[in-house]
C-alpha cells in the first residue's frame, strides 16, 4: 500500500462525512457504520506495524506532496517508532469510545459520532505529520472537534470548560506558530538563498540559531506543549475539561490528546533545539516533579471522582515529562511507554467512572459506598485498573514508572527521590477513593438498586484490562519498536546531554554511544528521503529539499 499513512488519516474523516448523510432516525445503522469506519485505521495500523522496520531510527513510509511551495511547506507524512505506538493507542481507543458512546450519549447522537471520527482523523494527522506547518495545522484542527464534544455533550459547566480548554491551548500554540515561521525562515537564511523557506522537519534539524533565538523559540514550543501535557502551572484547564466532558470525550482527551504535548517535546522541541532543551532540563524537571507531587496531593482531597482522575493524570504526565528531560535511554523509553500506559489505564478509569455516572448521574465519591457487594464485577475491574494506574508490578503502569524513575535518578538524585514519593502519594489517593466507593457498608439506599456492568460496558473495559496485563508482563514488542527511534531522538541532543551529565558528575550514559551505533544518516538535509515516484510527484519548483536518494515507500 503506497500511501498508507494518508489513508490512515483520511478514513475517519471520510467516514464522518458518510455518517453525515445517514438519516437521524437510524441509530443502529449509525452505530455499526461508525464502528466499521473506526476499525479501518486499526487494520491499517496493524499492517503498518507488520511492515515497520524496527532497526531504523528515522522516518518510514514517507509521503510527500507539494502544498504551499511558496512557503516551502508540503504535505509530508512519515512515522517512526514513537509515533507508531501513539497511533496504535489512538486507533485502539477510538473504537472503544464509539462502542461506549451507544450507552452514554443520548441527544444528537449522529453529531457525536461525526465529531469523534473527525477528532480521530486530526489526531492521527498530527501524529504522522513531519512537516512543521502540517503539524501545526492538525494541532489546531484537533481543538475544534474536542471543543464541540465538551461543549455540546458535556455536563453543567461545559461552556466554561470548553472555552477554557480552547483558550488555554491557543494561548500556547500561537506563539509556537511565530516560532515555526521564524525557524523556517532561519533555515532559508542558512541555506544561502534568503527566499526559500522550508518547513520540512528533516531540513530544520540542522538550522543554526543564535542562542537567544534558540531559547526564545524553545520557550514558545515549550509553552505550547506544556499547556497540552499539562505541566504544573498551566494545568487548571484539565480538571474542568475532564469533569464536564462526556465519558467518551474524557477517554480520548486523557488517552491521546494529553500525549500530543509530550509527543511534541520528543518530536519537535528536543531535536530542533537540543542545547536549549538540555539547558532547560533542570527547571523542566523541577516543574515535572512539582506536578507529580502537587497533582497527587490535590487529588487526595477531591470530592469528585473524575476530578480526582484528572489530577492523577497531571501527576502521571509529570512522570512522563520527568522521563523525557532525563534524556537517557531508560528515562525516555520509560516516558514513551508510560504515555501508552496512561492512555490505557486512565482511559479505562474514565470508562468505569462513566459506567457509574450513567446509573446515578453523580460523580461525588460521598454519594457512593459499599459498591463491591452490589456490583462485584465492576469492583474487580475497577480494582485491576486502579492497580495498573498506581503502578503495581506485573501490570503496565509499573514498567513505565520504574524506567522513568531509573532514568530520572540518573539525571538527578534529588528529583528521582521526590518523584519516588509521588508513587506513594499516588497509591494513597487512589486507595482512599477506592475504599470510600467500594468498601464499607452501603450508605446510600439509591446504591442498592444499581445493576452490574452490561455486556457493552464490559466490551469496552475488558480489552483495556487485557492490554494492561500484556503490557505489564511482556513489554518487549513495544520496546523493540521504539528502541531505534528513541536512540535517534536522543542522538540529536547527545553532545549537549553528555556535557550536562559530565557536569553533573556521573559518567556519560551509554545512550551517547548507542546513538552513534544506530544507523542514522546524520546529515540534516537528507534525514527525510522522498518516495521514488511518490504518490504525487513533488512539484518542480520545490527546490527547498532536493529529492534524496533511495525512497522507502514500499
Amino acid at each position: 500500500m503506497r500511501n498508507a499513512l494518508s489513508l490512515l488519516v483520511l478514513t475517519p474523516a471520510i467516514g464522518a462525512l458518510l455518517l453525515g448523510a445517514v438519516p437521524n432516525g437510524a441509530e443502529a445503522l449509525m452505530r455499526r457504520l461508525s464502528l466499521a469506519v473506526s476499525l479501518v485505521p486499526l487494520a491499517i495500523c496493524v499492517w503498518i506495524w507488520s511492515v515497520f522496520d524496527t532497526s531504523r531510527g528515522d522516518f518510514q513510509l514517507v509521503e510527500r506532496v507539494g502544498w504551499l511551495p511558496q512557503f516551502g511547506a508540503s504535505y509530508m507524512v512519515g512515522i517512526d517508532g514513537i509515533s507508531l505506538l501513539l497511533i496504535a493507542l489512538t486507533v485502539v481507543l477510538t473504537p472503544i469510545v464509539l462502542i461506549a458512546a451507544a450507552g452514554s450519549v443520548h441527544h444528537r447522537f449522529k453529531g457525536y459520532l461525526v465529531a469523534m471520527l473527525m477528532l480521530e482523523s486530526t489526531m492521527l494527522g498530527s501524529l504522522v505529520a513531519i512537516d512543521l506547518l502540517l503539524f501545526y495545522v492538525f494541532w489546531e484542527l484537533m481543538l475544534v472537534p474536542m471543543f464541540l464534544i465538551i461543549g455540546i455533550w458535556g455536563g453543567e459547566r461545559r461552556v466554561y470548560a470548553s472555552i477554557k480548554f480552547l483558550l488555554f491551548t491557543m494561548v500556547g500554540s500561537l506563539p509556537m506558530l511565530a516560532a515555526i515561521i521564524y525557524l523556517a525562515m532561519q533555515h532559508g537564511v542558512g541555506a544561502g538563498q534568503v527566499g526559500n523557506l522550508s518547513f520540512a522537519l528533516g531540513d530544520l534539524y540542522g538550522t543554526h540559531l543564535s542562542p537567544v533565538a534558540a531559547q526564545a523559540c524553545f520557550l514558545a514550543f515549550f509553552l505550547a506543549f506544556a499547556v497540552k501535557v499539562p505541566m504544573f502551572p498551566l494545568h487548571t484547564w484539565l480538571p474542568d475539561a475532564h469533569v464536564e466532558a462526556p465519558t467518551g470525550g474524557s477517554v480520548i482527551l486523557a488517552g491521546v490528546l494529553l500525549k500530543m504535548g509530550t509527543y511534541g517535546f520528543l518530536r519537535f522541541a528536543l531535536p530542533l533545539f537540543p542545547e536549549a532543551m538540555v539547558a532547560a532540563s533542570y527547571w523542566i524537571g523541577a516543574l515535572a516533579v512539582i506536578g507529580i507531587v502537587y497533582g497527587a496531593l490535590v487529588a487526595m482531597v477531591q470530592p469528585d471522582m473524575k476530578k480526582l482522575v484528572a489530577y492523577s493524570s497531571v501527576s502521571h504526565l509529570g512522570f512522563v515529562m520527568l522521563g523525557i528531560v532525563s534524556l537517557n535511554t531508560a528515562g525516555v523509553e520509560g516516558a514513551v511507554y508510560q504515555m501508552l500506559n496512561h492512555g490505557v489505564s486512565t482511559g479505562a478509569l474514565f470508562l468505569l467512572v462513566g459506567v457509574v455516572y450513567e446509573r446515578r448521574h453523580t460523580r461525588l465519591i460521598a454519594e457512593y459506598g459499599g459498591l463491591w457487594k452490589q456490583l462485584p464485577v465492576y469492583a474487580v475491574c475497577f480494582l485491576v485498573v486502579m492497580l495498573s494506574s498506581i503502578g503495581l508490578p506485573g501490570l503496565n503502569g509499573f514498567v513505565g514508572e520504574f524506567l522513568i524513575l531509573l532514568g530520572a535518578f540518573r539525571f538527578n538524585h534529588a528529583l528521582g527521590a521526590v518523584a519516588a514519593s509521588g508513587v506513594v502519594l499516588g497509591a494513597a489517593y487512589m486507595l482512599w477513593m477506592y475504599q470510600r466507593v467500594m468498601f464499607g457498608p452501603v450508605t446510600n439506599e439509591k446504591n442498592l438498586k444499581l445493576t452490574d456492568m452490561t455486556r457493552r460496558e464490559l466490551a469496552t473495559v475488558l480489552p483495556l484490562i487485557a492490554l494492561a496485563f500484556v503490557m505489564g508482563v511482556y513489554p518487549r514488542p513495544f520496546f523493540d519498536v521504539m528502541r531505534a527511534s528513541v536512540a535517534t531522538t536522543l542522538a540529536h541532543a547527545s553532545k549537549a546531554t553528555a556535557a550536562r551529565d559530565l557536569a553533573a558528575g556521573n559518567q556519560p550514559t551509554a545512550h551517547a554511544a548507542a546513538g552513534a551505533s544506530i544507523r542514522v544518516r546524520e546529515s540534516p538535509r537528507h534525514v527525510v528521503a522522498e518516495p521514488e515516484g511518490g504518490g504525487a510527484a513533488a512539484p518542480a519548483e520545490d527546490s527547498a529539499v532536493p529529492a534524496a536518494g533511495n525512497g522507502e515507500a514500499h
Partner: protein
Amino acid sequence: MHAAATEVTASLPIAVSYLRYIPLAPLVGVLFHVALGYRLGRRAVGLVACAAVAVSFALAAKAFLTVLGSAAGTVVTDNVYQWLSSGEFTANVTFSVDALSSVMIMVVTGVGFLIHLYSIGYMAHEEDYARFFAYLNLFTAAMLVLVLADNLPLMFVGWEGVGLCSYLLIGFWYTDPEKASAGKKAFLVNRIGDAGFVLGAFTIFWALVDLGQGSLTFATINARAAELPAWASLAGALLLFVGATGKSAQIPLYVWLPDAMAGPTPVSALIHAATMVTAGVYMVARLHGLFEAAPAALQVVGIVGAATALLAATIGIAQTDIKKVLAYSTVSQLGYMFLALGVGAYGAGIFHVMTHAFFKALLFLGAGSVIHGLHDEQDIRRMGGVAQKMPITHATFALGVLAIAGVPGLSGFFSKDEILASAYAGGHFGLWICGVLGASITAFYMTRLYVLTFRGKFRGDHHKWDHAHESPIQMTLPLMVLAALAVVGGYVGVPEVLGGNNAFAEYLAPSVGHHQLGLAAGTELMLMGISVAAALTGIGLAWVMYSKGPDADLILKNKLGGLYQQMREAYNIDAVYDALVVQPLMRASDALWHSVDVRVIDGVANGTAAAVNSAGEGWRRWSTGNVQHYMLTVLVGVAALILALTLSSLIGVAG
C-alpha cells in the same frame, strides 16, 4: 573482632525448566477461583486451592533435594524470558534456587499448605469462600516469585505482589470500615518501604553501571559490592533496609502489623507470621555481600533489630487481645532475626526464620482455633480454663509457648541461642543484653497469654462457654503437624558444643557464608545457661502472677505507673504518625487545591480574561454615538499622528 569474612563458594548453575511452575501453579488456582469458583461450590474451591499449593510444594521439594544432594554451592536456575531491556538496564524473569531460597520455598509452600488446609475449616461458614482462596493462592504465588527471583526487579514484582495480597486479605471483610482502612494502612506503609527499596536498587544499579557491569542480579551485586564507592554501597544498603523495615515491620514502619490482625486468622498466621514478614530478612540475607561492604549499614540493621525486639516485647506484655499479643510477639521475633543479620550471623537469622515460622504459625492457628471455638471472643481477660474444652489446641498451643520461650530441647531454644551466641561472639555486648532481656520478657508474656487463656476458670459469659467445643479435624491436624515441627525443627541446627554438627548452617554456607562462633566451649555453655535462666525466670514469674487471674495486670500497673498505660496503647505511635504525617498532608493538599489551583492559577487565567473584557468595555464606551465626538476623535487623531511623525523623524535623525 569481627567474624571471619564470609567467603562464598563459586555457584555451579544447573539449568532446569520446572521452577517456573512453582509460582505458576497457585496462579492457575487463582484463575480457577475467579472464573469458576462461585459456580462450583466450596468443596471444589478448597480442593483446588490446596492442590495448587501441594503441586508447588512437590516441585519445591524436588528443587530442595537437588540442591541438598549435589555439591555445595549448586544453583538450580530456570531462565524463562527477558522481561525488560532499555538502554543499559535489563531485567529477566529467571528463577533460581540455591541453599537459602530452597529453605524459604520449603517453608512458604509447607506452612502455606498447612494453613490452606486449616482455612477450609476456619472459613467454612463464610459466603465469599472463593474470593478468600483466590487471594490466598495469589499471595502464595507472589511470595514464591519473591523468593525464587534471581534479580532485584523480579523480586520487587513479588515484593509488591505480597503487599497487594496483604491489603486484600486484611480488608477481606470489607463491609467493616476499620478492616478496610487497616488494609489500606498496610498497603501504604509497605509502599513507603517499597519506595525506599526502589531507590536503593537504582543507587546500586547506576553505581554498577559506572563500574561497567550494569545489572541487578544478586550474584553480580554480591560479587561487585566491595568495589562500589563507599557512599553508593552505604546508601544502597540503607535504602534497601528501609524497604525491609516496611515489609518486615521494624521500627519505624511496624505500625501496620498490629492493625493487620483485622484480617482472618489464617491470614495472620500465613502472611503476618510465617512468610511475608520474613521477606525483609530474606532480602538482607540474600544481599549480604552488599551489607558487608557497608559495615555501618550492618550496624544499623543490628541496632534497629534489637530496639524493635525490646520495644515490641514491652508492648506485648500489656495487650489484652490474643491476636495483638501474638502480633507484637512477631514484631519482636523479627527484631531478633534482624539482630542476627546485624551481627553477621545470616545462617542463624534464617534458622530463626524457619523455626519462628513453625511455632508462630502454630500459635496463631491455635489462637484462631480458640477464637473459632469461643465464637469470636478475642479478649483474654474473658477467657480461662479453655484447656478442658479444647485439649488438642491446648496441648499444641502449650508446646508453641514453650518453643517460643526458648525452653531447651525445643526449636526456639536452638535458633534464639545461636543468635545470642553470635551476638556475644561478635562483641556486640549491648545487643546481646537486649537479646537476653527480650528473651525473658517474651517468655513472660507468652506464659501470661497461656495461663490467662487455658488455665484457671472461664471468666467470659457462660453462654459462650456452653457452646465452646474443640475445632474440627481440618483445623487440629495442621496444629499437630506444626507442633511436631516446632519441637523437631530445632534439631536440624544443634550447635557443636551440644554434640550436633549444626547441619543447617553448613547447608546454608554456600549462599550466605558460614560464620564460626570462635567461642570456647565453656563460654558457649555459660551463655546457654544464662539464656535458659532468663527464659525460666520469665515463665515462673508469669505463672505465679497470673495463675490467680487477669488482676495481676494491676500489680504491674501500679508498679510501672504511667508506663504501663503507654505500653497498653503501644506508646500511641499511631497517633504520633497521624499527627506528624497524615493530618499535615491532608491539610496541605486542601490548602494547595484551594489556594494554588483555584485562587492563584485560575485567578490569573480568569483575571486576564476579566482584564481584557474590562478593557473592551472601556473602549466600547468610547463610541458614544454622537457624530461630533467622532469628529473630535479624528482631529485629536490627526494631532497625535503628526506628533508621532515628528518624534519618529527626530529620533530617526538623531538615531
